[in-house]
């Protein structure tokens, strides 16, 4: 987080406007635009499998982004993000099923409703610090889950609820190939929104609170307001992501969205780099792809020579779990500040190439 920003020689800025761009250089900006354009062609070339993996990455990346606002930028760790994710999913399905609000509107609306609930759960944040707050968020998660399992009118109780596919003005999107674009659009918009937020007044206030809340307060920042707000924002993105997920999977089940999932969200931002927007995306991809690749590996191992030699049989699945755990550990041992930092270093290295000490 502390590396000095380095700008290639020759790139002079002549106005403050030029100095506040999202991308540090023209080239990086062009690369980003090119990347997005390439992604638009993904559904044409990707297999169903890769498509579904990328959709998952996109959806989870939005929820992780919300969490990063809370953890990375405001410095309040939460292990309750999965609860809000589910809330968004159930809400969107519910308002779409019950009030016939088209999915197109239900998704953002679910985000807003989740954000409101997030604000309520964020109230303790004004008083609690550090681990005390962490556990309060854990409690929030349990309370939400308990609500879902009880509120049959809303979430179907313990039975998975069903959601409708995405539709715009009577036209229904079918299949992953079309849904991919919905997710892509949401990812782009959400990442832009947050990037903007972080370079304007309220975003700076959040970071100031993270770095030194006492002096932030004296600089005129209302701690209660912003601490709560950051919970609201985190919940908003969790809600959006959950809603996207609901209309993607078409069924919503609590299974798999307990604290393990909240922890996975946390893993995404830690591996990506807390307080880094692009890092969030990279971290999410890492966390989603890791078990997938291990799955692939264990599949190929199965029945092979190693399997036979070690008599692994079903134990391959434990081997896979162990490998996932070990890779996360090893990753953090080598890259405790996350992917974002290494990424920055590589960029710095190339920029300074002949002169880097």
């Amino acid at each position: 987080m502390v590396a000095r920003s380095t700008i290639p020689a020759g790139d002079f800025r002549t106005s403050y406007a030029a100095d506040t761009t999202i991308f540090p250089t023209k080239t990086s900006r062009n690369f980003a635009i090119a990347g997005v354009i390439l992604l638009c062609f993904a559904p044409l070339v990707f297999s169903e499998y890769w498509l579904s993996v990328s959709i998952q990455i996109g959806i989870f990346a939005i929820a992780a982004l919300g969490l990063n606002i809370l953890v990375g930028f405001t410095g309040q760790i939460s292990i309750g993000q999965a609860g809000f994710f589910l809330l968004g999913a159930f809400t969107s399905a519910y308002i779409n099923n019950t009030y016939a609000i088209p999915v197109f509107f239900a998704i953002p609306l679910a985000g807003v409703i989740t954000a409101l609930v997030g604000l309520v759960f964020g109230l303790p944040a004004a008083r609690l610090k550090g681990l005390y707050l962490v556990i309060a968020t854990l409690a929030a998660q349990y309370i939400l889950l308990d609500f879902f399992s009880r509120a049959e009118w809303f979430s179907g109780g313990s039975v998975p609820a069903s959601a409708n596919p995405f539709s715009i003005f009577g036209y229904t999107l079918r299949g992953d190939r079309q849904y991919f674009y919905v997710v892509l659009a949401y990812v782009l918009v959400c990442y832009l929104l947050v990037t903007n937020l972080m370079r304007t007044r309220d975003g700076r206030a959040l970071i100031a609170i993270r770095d030194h809340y006492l002096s932030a307060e004296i600089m005129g920042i209302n701690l209660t307001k912003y601490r709560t707000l950051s919970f609201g924002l985190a919940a908003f993105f969790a809600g959006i992501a959950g809603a996207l997920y609901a209309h993607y999977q078409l069924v919503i089940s609590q299974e798999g969205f307990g604290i393990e999932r909240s922890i996975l969200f946390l893993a995404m931002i830690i591996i990506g780099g807390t307080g880094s927007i692009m890092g969030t995306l990279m971290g999410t991809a890492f966390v989603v792809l890791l078990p997938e690749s291990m799955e692939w590996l264990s599949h190929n191992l199965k029945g092979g020579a190693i399997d036979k030699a070690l008599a692994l049989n079903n134990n391959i699945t434990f081997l896979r779990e162990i490998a996932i755990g070990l890779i996360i550990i090893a990753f953090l041992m080598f890259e405790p500040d996350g992917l974002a930092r290494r990424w920055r270093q590589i960029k710095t290295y190339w920029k300074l190439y002949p002169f880097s000490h």
Partner: protein
Amino acid sequence: MTETLDTPRAGAGSALAAPLLSVRNIEVVYDDVILVLRGLSLDVPKGAIVALLGANGAGKSTTLKAISGLLKTEDGEVTRGEIMFDGARIDGIDPEKIVRRGIFQVMEGRRIVADMTSLENLKLGAFTRSDREVNSDIEMVFNYFPRLKERTGLAGYLSGGEQQMLAIGRALMARPKMILMDEPSMGLSPLLVKEVFAIIKEINRDLGVTILLVEQNARAALSVASHGYIMEQGKVVLDGTADSLRDNEDVKEFYLGGAGDQRKSFKNLKSFKRRKRWL
């Protein structure tokens, strides 16, 4: 470029005794990229007080942290050169081992343990000791700084100056061979500054502790030190005996506040500045 005022470098203290600490040509890099010390060398003779002066950001604190090994916790690294203490190399070894060898650093910004009482902080200072005289040493510290004895609450609630006293007291508790002091007078009232320098002199004289003193109050520092170094941008630019430094025109102007014994007024300053001769 280094300018030596009187005796050649190596001889600076060796006339009195062999250097206890000798820093040879070290380079320090933070975060793998930020080069802060660029070939710095200095000697501290046994039993001496040596002052290290320099502007903000010159790398004084970095130098001390390089000696005490504490750089590592800040992502810093000595990438070249060597540091010898008591005849052995100490660069690269763990900070706690360096403490055991007898170098104790009083860090900039107090760094007392805020959620412990003063007494507990003092006891911690004696962590590496196992002798029975710890309690009498605590009394000694309380004698130096009676205020600490009155404040029995958590050290975090002490005033800035009180914390500074505690930090110095804690160093005394370790009974080290050498103390690295990073701006001990910072935030102290004029009366206490005098006292602190008196104490520095006293422990140097009575307990035989060698002291490397980083200080912005150059006048006070040079009044207790036998020898001084002046740093600028990661290098030593001037060194010599305390007296010779006191007489240097640049030192007078930039560190002591005016030529001779006359003091300039802070009120009528112009933004214009004269170039330093050593740059």
